[in-house]
């Protein structure tokens, strides 16, 4: 067996594979053994009860899907009373994904979920910032710094900031999160997109626009993960279109400490277990004892002929 353990900041995980927020619930225990996962990540909780967006909430696209679920949520009390205990029955650390429209809302909610037993706080900062004309916190390094600072002051628990691929420069946002005290960044949330039913001349999502996920976005998010890895010292968790061990390895080689699997679980609920088994087999076949020996091992591209040609030209 390969040693799959990785540390994500102060958090030691048995392996680098965990679900992405919003694509996971305790019900997945009906299909797989949750104790095999690196961590358990709940759907985002917000300070107020919310019904969610108008239907339809999903639309399939080539190799992906759009969603505009709108974070339906029963509020922090129900989360602390029911959701946290349900997940704490399992071995892996429990990651509470939180979101709010204000900096204060984020900070209070973080304190609440940590007091309730959450092992890690993942700040979903892709939601609209009500104090900044509804622009998502995560599109601006300044707004990200403000919210992460407040979260850092509110809790000593490990704090992960989930960044948005819709930011103009995601590496700058990652640096702002690091400077403000985040233990890790998750790269990234869904990419804003849209689809239209041409016969009905209506958007395919009730909310008009929504987040694109699935294999279609993997190359974009892999690039962003690599950019963030180069920009910060804190761990980067890759999340975007990962469906196979080969996908996960791409992110790990690019320097991600761990990966989150989301939409792939909708197609195959066994995806995360398959990835773990295949990661182990891949490492064993190559005599790699520890998965950490794979992380950040991207080789520079060698172009000997080109270099030789340059040498000749220089002479």
């Amino acid at each position: 067996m390969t040693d799959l353990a990785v540390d994500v900041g102060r958090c030691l995980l048995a392996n680098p594979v965990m679900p992405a927020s919003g694509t996971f619930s305790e019900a997945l225990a009906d299909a797989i053994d949750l104790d095999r996962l690196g961590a358990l990540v709940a759907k985002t909780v917000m300070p107020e009860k919310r019904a969610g967006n108008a239907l339809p909430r999903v639309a399939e696209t080539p190799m992906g899907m759009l969603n505009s679920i709108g974070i339906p949520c029963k509020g922090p009390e129900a989360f602390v009373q029911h959701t946290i205990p349900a997940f704490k029955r399992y071995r892996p650390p429990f990651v509470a994904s939180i979101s709010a429209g204000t900096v204060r809302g984020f900070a209070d909610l973080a304190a609440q979920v940590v007091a309730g037993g959450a092992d890690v706080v993942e700040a979903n900062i892709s939601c609209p910032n009500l104090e900044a004309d509804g622009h998502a916190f995560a599109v601006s390094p300044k707004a990200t710094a403000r919210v992460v600072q407040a979260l850092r002051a509110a809790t000593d628990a490990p704090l992960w900031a989930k960044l948005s691929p819709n930011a103009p420069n995601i590496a700058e946002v990652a640096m702002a999160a690091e400077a403000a005290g985040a233990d890790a960044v998750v790269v990234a949330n869904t990419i804003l997109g849209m689809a239209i039913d041409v016969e009905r001349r209506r958007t395919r999502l009730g909310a008009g626009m929504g987040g694109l996920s699935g294999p279609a976005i993997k190359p974009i998010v892999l690039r962003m993960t690599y950019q963030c890895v180069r920009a910060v010292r804190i761990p980067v968790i890759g999340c975007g279109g990962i469906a196979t061990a080969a996908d996960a390895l791409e992110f790990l080689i690019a320097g991600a400490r761990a990966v989150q699997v989301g939409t792939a679980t909708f197609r195959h609920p066994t995806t995360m277990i398959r990835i773990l088994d295949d990661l182990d087999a891949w490492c064993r076949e190559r005599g790699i004892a520890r998965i950490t020996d794979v992380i950040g091992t991207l080789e520079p591209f060698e172009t000997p002929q080109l270099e030789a040609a340059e040498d000749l030209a220089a002479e």
Partner: protein
Amino acid sequence: MLHQEPLPSTHDASIGRRVGEHLCVVRSNSAVNADYRLMRLSAPAGALAAEPGQFFHILCPATADGTPFLRRPMSVYHVDVAGEAIGFLYKVHGAGTRVLDALQPGATLDVLGPLGRGFTLDAAWRRIVLVGRGVGLATLAPLAVRAAAAGVGVTAVLSVRRPDLVMSVDLLSRCGADVHVVHDADGSSDVAAVGRLITQLLDQHPADAVFTCGSSRLLTLLQGIAKARGLYGEVALEQQMACGLSMCFCCVRAFKVGDEVEHRRVCWEGPVFDLQEALP
């Protein structure tokens, strides 16, 4: 059966779990009438545990025209435990079902399930009434089979656009069901006419519970009749789904609970719900 047929199996990671990712083998896939097709699959043990009203989430294979990205939910039409087979009745109306339509015997199909909460059946009941419209009949048919096996009488009202599109009459008759077909061509499927028919049937053969699927107008009608007579009732609902396992919250519908309106997931709290709480 073909000797070369691949054996159905369950993905290792989900063996022994309530919900399995099963690889089933198509035994037959043919038209039952102008609108509907019946697909029978060889299925492993985990899939044969399906209860009437539960569904499977089917991964439509890739074709030259593309890959339907999301699975398609389909209620189980029949479960043949001895014959190790499950069956689905479906209508071709989109990218997913077009792919299913083209599947030949021997093809394998990734089928996730059984999923959701099925129908209630109390063996102490004397009779139940089933009221289905269109493909809703496919969802109700296995309940009739289960009721007959439990010695519970069945009255079935089948509503269709045209008489030639009716399904399951033979199956229901074999179960000893009292079957009544209504259709649009002669107006017998008008809500008022169906209401009179059900009232008359209930007067003749009193029932303990009513079940419906396939029409929100029939749902509203049956809610009224069941309420007036104090009958227990359930409705099987449909909704577009992504995960099928309660995780994504895309398949919610509204329900009336006391004075509150509550959203519930068709895949998880359903697809079978209390008749009176469902909002059409």
